[in-house]
């Protein structure tokens, strides 16, 4: 019959081995769990459609009508949504999302552009690093707003899978937005020479 100390030593040895093995397993499990949790919690970047670009609106001194706070928030949000949808449409050469944020001239032009992209097999990928919007005109009856946008964009142009051009420089746009039932739409979006600001 083994003595208590013998049994104790045997148990300690066994528990140590078990502990060591268990520790390793537990550590591995914890690391994997953490990795999975981080992967789940981090923003999923599948494509430009998933995230909204940052838009900062400066409406100080806007004339002839001052902007309401809620209007400013809405404008910035829908402008960001519009650029997200536009980037998605230019990359996928599909027009489904354009009606949500574009109307009138802008919508017609982008629809045509994307249709021709699809025909020619080219597409454009935009990496949007944000927009600085300055409101320059707000009509008295609140039915039209004109803004200047300084945008930080990386634009990659592809013919099929072949990258044919990369541009990365600040771009400036003249924007005309008009209100709809529940949002502001982009009615005109025109890239202008850099000295507009």
């Amino acid at each position, binding site marked *: 019959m083994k003595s208590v100390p013998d049994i104790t030593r045997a148990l300690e040895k066994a528990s140590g081995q078990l502990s060591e093995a268990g520790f390793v397993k537990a550590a591995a499990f914890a690391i994997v769990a953490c990795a999975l949790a981080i992967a789940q919690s981090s923003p999923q970047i599948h494509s430009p459609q998933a995230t909204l670009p940052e838009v900062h609106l400066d409406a100080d001194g806007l004339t*002839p009508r001052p902007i309401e706070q809620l209007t400013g928030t809405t404008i910035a949000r829908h402008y960001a949504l519009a650029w997200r949808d536009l980037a998605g449409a230019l990359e996928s050469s599909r027009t489904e999302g354009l009606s949500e944020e574009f109307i009138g*001239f802008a919508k*017609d*032009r*982008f629809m*045509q*552009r994307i249709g*021709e*992209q699809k*025909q*020619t*097999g*080219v597409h*454009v990928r935009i990496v949007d690093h944000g927009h600085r919007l300055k409101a*320059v*005109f707000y*009509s*008295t*009856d609140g*039915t*039209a707003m*004109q803004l*200047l946008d300084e945008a930080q964009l990386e634009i990659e*142009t592809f*013919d099929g899978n072949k990258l*044919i*051009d990369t*541009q990365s420089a600040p*771009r400036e746009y*003249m924007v*005309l937005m008009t209100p709809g039932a529940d949002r502001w739409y982009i009615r*005109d*979006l*025109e*890239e*202008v*020479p850099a000295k507009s600001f």
Partner: protein
Amino acid sequence: MKPTVHRSFARCRRMAGLALLCVLPGWARAAELHLPAAVEAGQAFSVHVEGSGEASFYLFGPDHVVKRTVSLGSDLQIQSSDVRTAGRYQAILCDSSCTAAMFDVKAAQPAHLSFFLHPSRVPVSSPGSIDATAFVFDQYFNLVLTPAAVEFRVTPASGTGFSREVSTRSGVASMRMDSTPHEGRVQVTAVLGKVEEARVIQQVAAEACGLRMKAVASGSLVTLETDPVRDCSGNALPEGTVISFTKIDESGKSTVDTPIKKGVARVQFSVHGRAQISVACGVVLGNEVALNGKL
């Protein structure tokens, strides 16, 4: 090997390398694009592309994509239909490698005015109540960003007209004006060169002023009729404007909301005992009539 031969061989190697350096760029040089910095919308132009052989040409515009095979060393035609929309364009030429160039397309001459005149109905004698805004576009509906002078000609229904010239900023001209004291149509025409757009607004009477009614008894009934309902400038309130009559007598309170017809509002009540009758138009109160019960 003798040292002299060794040095000669090294010199030749260096010269061959230098020669190769001179020649290779020529063999490896991509086709070049020479584009104008800016063109007017709808203006066709040609571009000379240097090099030899064939290349793929791409033109990316706001509403247009062109892709075609071109022969290098010749002139490339850009059609007017390719550059109708104002904005930044990118041209790319690819043979062994790709080269890109940018150019701007600016709006053409003004050809359209998008003219907004608000509100479509405005009370008379209201300061700064009429807003006129004109957006200047070219024939392709590009916003004309260069300053232009827009004239707003105002023609009221009565009284003398006037005009005001406003210079556009970023394609927009805007002005405000007061409504005149008289009801009726006011036509405002925005003019830029040969382009004209006219809009009409209706000046309507303001709030009722001096609202009065009179009572005519007939048996147990009393007929109430207002004087012609006018605003403080003497303009008649439009037909259909609701006038509220309220009668309080022994049977309780009775109300009738009746519209103006032919300038007046009329209602009939049956009266029991003493009665107090009042009249109102919106939030404007008129006179009160007291009936002592003896009809």
